[in-house]
């Protein structure tokens, strides 16, 4: 494509809890890092999109930009639940593809309290909250039960996702949790929603990430290690949506949004699941990693569990997943998490991931799935 978007810079503020830092400061840190990585200054940016889950305040995009002085470039906030960063990247990609802007910034920022997300963020109606039917993990627990019953996926395989992601997180200085969790510890941590236990879940937290996109001609001027944004797709889940925020369904036979979005991304990129070197996906809970690895068509239905227990998805395996520890280790700053995935994939494709490096990484896939049915799938290549 003439105006294929090229990633020339990435930045991240460690994911964690930073009571002494404002959300604008988190954003500025990630943007500074991405600009330095791209060898440009803020004044070179022609348009900016900023993702936040809507919890901060509506003017957060411009406020982060104004940390670099006043600017007249267009700045638009993007909100798409846990897929916000992906939707933001999609907007930035379209701005480059459309041809009017040649340097575009995609930023994600978040600051969230500990514990369950506030009901409104996930799209719950007030009556659902009053009835106590608004706890996100209950959906994942019931999905996990169905997957276990249908395919023989074991609780141990689910726990092994958490073991692997925590192990990878130890190697990632930007992760909130940098501690290994042995299988027994994961299985014996307190039950949140049966059969899933606390150490199988991600935690909402604070963080920021930023990505600089350039047109191919401009990218040549600034980088010798271009990473090509081969595809970025964003879709909503068709009926039924048996996930976060919902309370009724009907078996329509429709494909899951992750599959629909992945199919669109594979087609746009001209790249198939068999070509993927590494994957970042929505490991909100450990069973989700198994199910999404199947919905992304990386494994056949029912083979996601054995892939984990056979070591296929660990660093050094055939298809490493969540090499940065996933959000199980990093925590999930909702508006920023997807761009945090892009940060990791770019490092991997440039060969800059240090101890986490996947050998010969050529194609990386990043996937997010959020409340209301949002999903984004991004494919990067070198």
């Amino acid at each position, binding site marked *: 494509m003439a105006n294929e978007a090229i990633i020339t810079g990435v930045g991240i503020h460690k994911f964690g809890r930073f009571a002494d830092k404002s959300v604008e400061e988190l954003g500025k840190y990630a943007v500074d890092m991405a600009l330095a990585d791209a060898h440009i200054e803020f004044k070179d940016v022609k348009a900016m999109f900023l993702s936040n889950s809507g919890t901060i305040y509506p003017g957060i995009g411009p406020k982060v930009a104004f940390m670099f002085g006043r600017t007249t470039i267009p700045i638009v906030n993007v909100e798409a639940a846990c897929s916000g960063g992906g939707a933001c990247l999609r907007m930035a990609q379209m701005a480059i593809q459309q041809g009017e802007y040649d340097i575009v910034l995609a930023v994600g920022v978040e600051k969230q309290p500990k*514990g*369950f*997300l*506030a*009901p409104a963020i996930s799209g719950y*109606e*007030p*009556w659902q*909250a*009053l*009835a*106590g*039917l*608004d*706890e996100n993990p*209950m959906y994942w*627990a*019931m*999905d996990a*039960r*169905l997957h276990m*019953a249908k395919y023989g996926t074991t609780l141990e395989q689910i726990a092994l996702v958490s073991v692997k992601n925590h192990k990878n997180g130890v190697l990632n200085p930007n992760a909130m949790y940098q501690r290994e969790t042995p299988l027994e510890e994961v299985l014996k941590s*307190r*039950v*949140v*929603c*049966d*059969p899933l236990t606390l150490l199988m879940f991600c935690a909402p937290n604070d963080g920021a990430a930023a990505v600089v996109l350039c047109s191919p001609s401009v990218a040549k001027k600034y980088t010798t290690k271009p990473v090509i944004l081969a595809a970025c797709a964003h879709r909503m889940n*068709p*009926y*039924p949506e*048996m996930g976060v925020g*919902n*309370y*009724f*369904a*009907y*078996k*329509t036979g*429709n494909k899951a949004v992750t599959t629909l979005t992945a199919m669109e991304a594979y087609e746009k990129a001209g790249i198939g699941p068999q070509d993927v070197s590494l994957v970042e996906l929505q490991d909100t809970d450990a069973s989700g990693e198994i199910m999404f690895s199947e919905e992304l068509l990386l494994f056949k239905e029912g083979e996601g569990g054995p892939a984990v227990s056979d070591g296929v998805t660990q660093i050094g395996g055939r298809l490493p997943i969540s090499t940065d520890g996933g959000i199980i280790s990093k925590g999930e700053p909702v508006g920023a998490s997807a761009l945090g995935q892009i940060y990791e994939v770019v490092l991997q494709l440039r060969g800059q991931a240090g101890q986490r490096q996947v050998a010969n990484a050529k194609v990386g896939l990043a996937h997010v799935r959020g409340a209301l049915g949002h999903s984004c799938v991004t494919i990067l290549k070198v």
Partner: protein
Amino acid sequence: MAQQVPFKEGCLTVPLSPLDQVRLKGIKCRACGSLALGSSQYCINCTSKDVEPYVFSRKGKIYSHTVIRHAPPPPYPQETFKPFPVAWVELEDGLIILSEITGCGLEDLDFGLPVELDVTKGWVDERGNDVMMYKFRLTK
């Protein structure tokens, strides 16, 4: 005297008493056959406007299940919280609905177990009305 109001407009048949006569209601799409809870001008699946009102069966079975072991976030009353089982219940008609399950212990649920609609007072709204909420009760 407190009025009785539904948990959500368009989801329960009226009148709201006697309670054992109250049913969940929604729509059926004449174009694609999909069922949905509550009122809507459009089919939630195929967007057809050719939809008709539909009253759902009181009976169903457990499709999947779990237990809420920690108090849901406010405004759910934190001080009175006790763990409770929840399930996706598949009604005889094919609608699948998320519900608290009553009449059983935390460990008693399994796939396919029969349940029946149980409409009771859930909470009191800001106007002092009794909000009528659906649950499903394990029937054996």
